[in-house]
């Protein structure tokens, strides 16, 4: 239950910080949420899930509103990647950032001890 709460908090704060400030700040905010949450190695997958949802989910919503007009064109720039592929790529980039954020948070938490 505490992990679920942390993930929800992570998504809310990560999204708000990325949206209102800068996408990089979203990861920094995420780091603090995970660091303070002290979930140990679970920080890895929590970071992954949260940032896949933040990046991939937001991209999905944007794409649906636009009926894939732009993602089809951008996909062509990336070597004929489909709109879904582009959403997955976005989610992947966010997810890797989330894993690394979680990993760093758990490493520093361990260091605190």
């Amino acid at each position, binding site marked *: 239950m505490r992990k679920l709460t942390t993930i929800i908090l992570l998504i809310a704060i990560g999204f708000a910080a990325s949206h209102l400030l800068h*996408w990089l700040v979203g990861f920094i905010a995420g780091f603090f949420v995970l660091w303070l949450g002290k979930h140990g190695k679970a920080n890895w997958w929590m970071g992954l899930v949260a940032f896949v949802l933040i990046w991939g989910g937001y*991209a999905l919503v*944007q794409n649906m509103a636009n009926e894939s*007009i*732009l993602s089809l064109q*951008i996909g*062509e*720039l990336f070597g004929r990647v489909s709109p879904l592929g582009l959403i997955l790529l976005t989610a992947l980039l966010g997810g890797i*950032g989330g894993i690394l954020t979680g990993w760093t948070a758990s490493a520093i938490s361990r260091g605190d001890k």
Partner: protein
Amino acid sequence: MKKIISLILPVLLSTGYFIFLLTPLQRGDNTLPPLGSFINPFNGFWQNVEKKIPFEQSKIQIRDLNNPVEIIYDRRLVPHIFAQSDIDLAYAEGYLHAQNRLWQMDISSRSAGGRLSEVFGDRTVENDRRMRRMGITKAAENLVVLWKECPSYPFLQAYVAGVNHYINHLGKKSTPIEFKLFNYQVEPWSELKTALVTMSMNLVLCARAWDMQASMARESMGDSLYHLLFPDWDPRQSPVIPIDIKWDFVADLGGQTYDTTSIGHFQEPYQNMHPAFVGSNNWAVSGARTKSGHPILCNDPHLNLTLPSIWYEMHVCTDEINAYGVSIPGIPHITIGFNEKIAWGMTNVGQDVLDFYQIEWENDTKDNYLIDGRPQSPEKRIECVEVKGGTSICDTIIYTYWGPIVNEETSAIAMHWLPNEHMSDCAINTFLNLSEGENFSDYWDALRSFESPPQNFVFASQEGDIAMKVQGKFPVRQKNQGKFIQSGASTSNAWRGFIPYEQTPFVKNPLRGFVSSANQHSTDPSYPYPYHGDFQHYRSRTLNSALDSMHSIEVEDMMNLQKSTYNQMAADLLPLLISNMDSTPLSEDQRMLVSELSKWDYRYNGESPYPVFFEKWKESLYDLVWDEMRSEDQEGDYYRPRRWRTIELLEMDPQSPFFDLESTEEVESATDIVSMAFADAYESYREMGANLNWQQYKNVRILHLSRIPAFSVDSIPVGGAGTTLNAITTTHGPSWRMIVELSNPVQAWGIYPGGQSGNPGSHYYSHMIPDWQEGKYYPLLFVKSPGDLKDQQLHEMKLIP
């Protein structure tokens, strides 16, 4: 140690990953944007996706406005702007241009100003250096100084402020996608940038020249042969001003004759930046010829078809103005359009307003040059091209009495170009005054301030007048002066002033009941002022012949005429080819092909295979006839006689020695050459596949301004050709089709191949192309108040002071 590594490793990896996401990537010669900045969904490209209604805000606070401005976007995203003053209107125009076409405006001004390399790196350096050498930025700076004296300058200031208001409130999220993709920042707009966009139109429309090629051709063949092969006047043509118009003035050409000495050979002659078939059609028929009894005005400017489109459609309404038409993003006001009383349109004139002069240096130090025997010190200006990812490249541009030196390979050649040297232009007045005009007299007064690029201005009014004025600042020259490179050592070779406004070619309400232009000669040779230029004759012959035969004209007839694919050149040449060829050695398939061609109606319809074969045959014949004048580049037209002259020779002088091939010992006749060209064309046609039709062969494409294929539209199935009224070539064509009936109220129809939005992620980026391709027109919603648009409204936006 293990503990330290487990602490440092994730920190290092995280740092490395985020640095990677923030670093521009190098792929071949291209620099790609940082992956994180471009792909993140918060301010990367995902923020450029647009919903069906692209605008989020419906009320925008703008303190600079005097009164509220109401903007209704209709279902094609055409803004209908309702302002209470012309100043507020200009401000809103600037705001909307920026909102919908900001990147296009930026790149157009960079292109003319020689600043593309700041965005695209090495690959545009030569283009930028060329723009700098041509003195475009200096000319634009001069233009801004001139505009400050124009009555409409405050509107320009308001327009620039409107653009900058949008830019200043533009977040990173809404920055046009091209800025993100090419990873550079939006800059403030300025009057200079508007002047540069104006200069870019001059570059497209009046910077074509072939003086160096003509000089070389004359040098190699001699004066009399040159004039035999390159005559000015095609006797079959139908000029803009009907030949029954008599001129009631005598031209003052200046007493002193110019120096006609033949000059030089050039290894790198001036290359034109734009192809020959940048042309347009416009015409107006009087009420006596229409079914409704009201004049009808039509215009379709043929320009480079691009995405975003060159045009931005809008309807502007104030207490003084109610006008509709298309504008050029970066320049205020409607360029081609109509209001409640009048309509106007333009085609390019094509008269030569660009000459070259050979500079004579005083000595080898090249510090001074000579004019009338006296040394003159040139002005020097250092121009540096900043190159993205590279080092700046600086050139010293040398300005002489004649203009900037553009060629120094064998001798210094200065370029003397109307927009650079002689402008006193207030063209920004012209379009505001036309928008406010009510009758012929207002049209006449409005054109007075328009100088360059010279245009054929067509006019029609609700009062029943129709008119055509060939308008521009035309140099007075003696016959043939300016066709070839001239000596720059004597002022006797200079232009002798300019043709007075009242004496530029003009016609009002001619007996034939219509006025028209399609880039042909302005007048017949009886016009008192000599002129020469780049003229096209086939479309005007089709147009005038069709209009001559039409009565009880309806709007649909005019639409069909704009879309006519009848090719007069094919009608002139094909019967000659068939009658001149030797059919004895033809195979059964070849005979069948000739038989089918002989029944062809000369229409360049997209599905027809005949234009493909005819074009092959024509071009093969052209290469064989003019084998003596081989050309490896696209400027071959100017090393070699025009196609109409080739057809004339085939018809009038089939025994001409030009039909003999230089490379063979035998003496070939016209029949031999026509038959050889047929065999060549047949072979090439068979290799391409016999099922290839004209639209597949032509492969019309509308490219994004940065040539990104993903943002372009390819393989558009349409017919037409450069010499048909529906003048669609692979990359050029009718960039705006407009038909206006001057009834009460005025009714109009129009379409352009693109969309109102410059954002590739918008539903309105290229949405009109399928309808344009099918030849459809949209009724233009010309209303008097916002309430009249209720059924057509997509979005309402208010600009509030």
